[in-house]
């Protein structure tokens, strides 16, 4: 696949070249490439063992690849932990609702990044600025049009979809470059899943590129701008969901069809 087939000319935000990751005898990533462009939702799909989760782990700092390089805004980066990735402006939303249930929405949004009061109250007494965190929470949630009224209610009083919205809103509020979403709708029902999809779209429209890992093909086709197909530890193809059928996409993913057999306009 060559660059000339890209349908978009938006600048590259995140890029990986020739990533290799071995676990003993198993090669999970075998020279995988990856490109995320500004302002897009890039879905990453792949069968079990295709190297999809190893790729995402490398991008989010959860594992360190053995070979290859990762570039963020053209600069080479090396993450040793998810905290490094977060410092670089990459936020990850996990499948299993990574929120503290008995704490309030505002507390969850600012967990680990609490704001302190100005002046001596903050520096000497280390007092939290609860009012400001509350106001910012209301503003962030309104910006993303999340219809939750009170930021002081415990997260456990919310539905699963609303909880996931809190996790997505937290990522969107603090990410400066990229939001990675690992199966954000997998634990949710149809209506709740759609609510989260709508939110993901608004995150993109806010200007943050989104990497979406999902098994749910209808969701992927509904929301993705481009689809990265992982296969055998490599990138098999990047396709345009508006030009390719779901069955052809699955065929490439499972290896029933070679990417080179796809018509050129399907590629993205």
């Amino acid at each position, binding site marked *: 696949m060559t660059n000339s087939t890209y349908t978009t000319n938006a600048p590259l935000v995140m890029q990986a070249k020739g990533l290799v990751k071995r676990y003993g005898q198993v090669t999970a990533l075998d020279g995988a490439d990856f490109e995320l462009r500004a302002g897009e939702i890039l879905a990453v799909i792949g069968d079990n063992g295709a190297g999809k989760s190893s790729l995402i782990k490398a991008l989010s700092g959860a594992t360190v690849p053995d070979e290859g390089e990762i570039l963020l805004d053209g600069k080479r980066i090396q993450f040793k932990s*998810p*905290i490094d990735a*977060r410092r670089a402006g990459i936020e*990850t939303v*996990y499948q*299993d*609702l*990574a*929120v*503290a*249930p*008995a*704490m309030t929405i505002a*507390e969850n949004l600012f*967990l*680990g*990044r*609490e704001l*302190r009061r100005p002046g001596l109250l903050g520096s000497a*007494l*280390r*007092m*939290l600025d*609860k009012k400001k965190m509350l106001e910012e929470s209301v503003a962030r949630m309104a910006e993303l049009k999340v219809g939750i009224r009170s930021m002081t*209610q*415990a997260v*456990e*009083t*919310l539905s699963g979809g609303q909880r996931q919205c809190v996790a997505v809103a937290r990522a969107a509020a603090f990410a400066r470059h990229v939001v990675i979403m690992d199966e954000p709708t997998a634990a949710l029902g149809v209506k709740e899943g759609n609510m989260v999809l709508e939110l993901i779209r608004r995150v993109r429209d806010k200007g943050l590129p989104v990497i979406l890992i999902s098994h749910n093909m209808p969701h992927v086709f509904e929301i993705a701008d481009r689809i990265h197909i992982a296969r055998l530890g490599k990138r098999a193809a990047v396709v345009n969901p508006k030009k390719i059928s779901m069955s052809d996409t699955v065929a490439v993913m499972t290896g029933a069809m070679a990417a080179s057999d796809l018509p050129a306009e399907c590629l993205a």
Partner: protein
Amino acid sequence: MSSTASKLPPLATLGPFIALILACAFFATQSERFLSAQNFALILQQVMVVAVIAIGQTLVILTAGIDLSCGMVMALGGIVMTKMAADYGLSAPVAIACGMAVTMLFGLINGLLVTKIKLPPFIVTLGTLNIAFAATQLYSGAQTITDIPAGMTALGNTFQLGQTAIVWGAVLMLVLYLVTWFALRETAPGRHVYAVGNSPEATRLTGIATDKVLLGVYVLAGLFYGIASVLSVARTGAGDPNAGQTENLDAISAVVLGGTSLFGGRGMILGTLVGALIVGVFRNGLTLMGVSSVYQILVTGILVILAVATDQLSRKGVR
């Protein structure tokens, strides 16, 4: 579901307080001496050791742990500080510092075993409970240490408030509650204690060093047990190798009666103070009624089971 769930916390916070008022009302009808300022000052003096141990215990239980060693570590601290003063002639502050260093060392050991080797807190502290008990007996030779400087019992002195003599240790206890209340409620490390107890994985994923939070909690608990050692020595005027035996479970009872969930992440430090007062009021009231101490232990046991059952049942509606 959401409406009942959001109404639960106020009930959970008020419950212990209502229980305390009811207990006071009951004992007031049983003994005319119960409702007097002197008697309340006495209750404060009786509960101050348990109440300070219970602060450390609350921190541990908020992280979904438990510390079974609390009373025995407190006893060991008392023996160390009194023997340091009696055997080596160390001044009161230095001897007290030695005792508190030992209690904090036990907290550190508990914390390291829980965070680094990932052992369950129940088992770790069951082990250190026995180690601390044996160390106390061996080091003291099972003898009470009475030859101590006056400075060590200063917190057992009283001041007059109107007609009532109030012990300084009780004031220190109340101050410690206020400081902990502030730290848990208004500072980031305090909120992280709740977060770790609530969902350790979610907390770790936000970038909080959960092991450091846990380790800090166990060491701080050791600090509170050390302060309780000082109060215990001040109250009895001696290093007592048999101290801490009722305090051990009374402190856990105080936390649970105060509405803190044994499942972690939920509870309030001022609830623990109320819980400690409930334990103290029952002990005091039953004594005034002439009920033998065995029945007092029986009642404490029943109260704890009632409190845990209430906690469990009230959580069912939420999950």
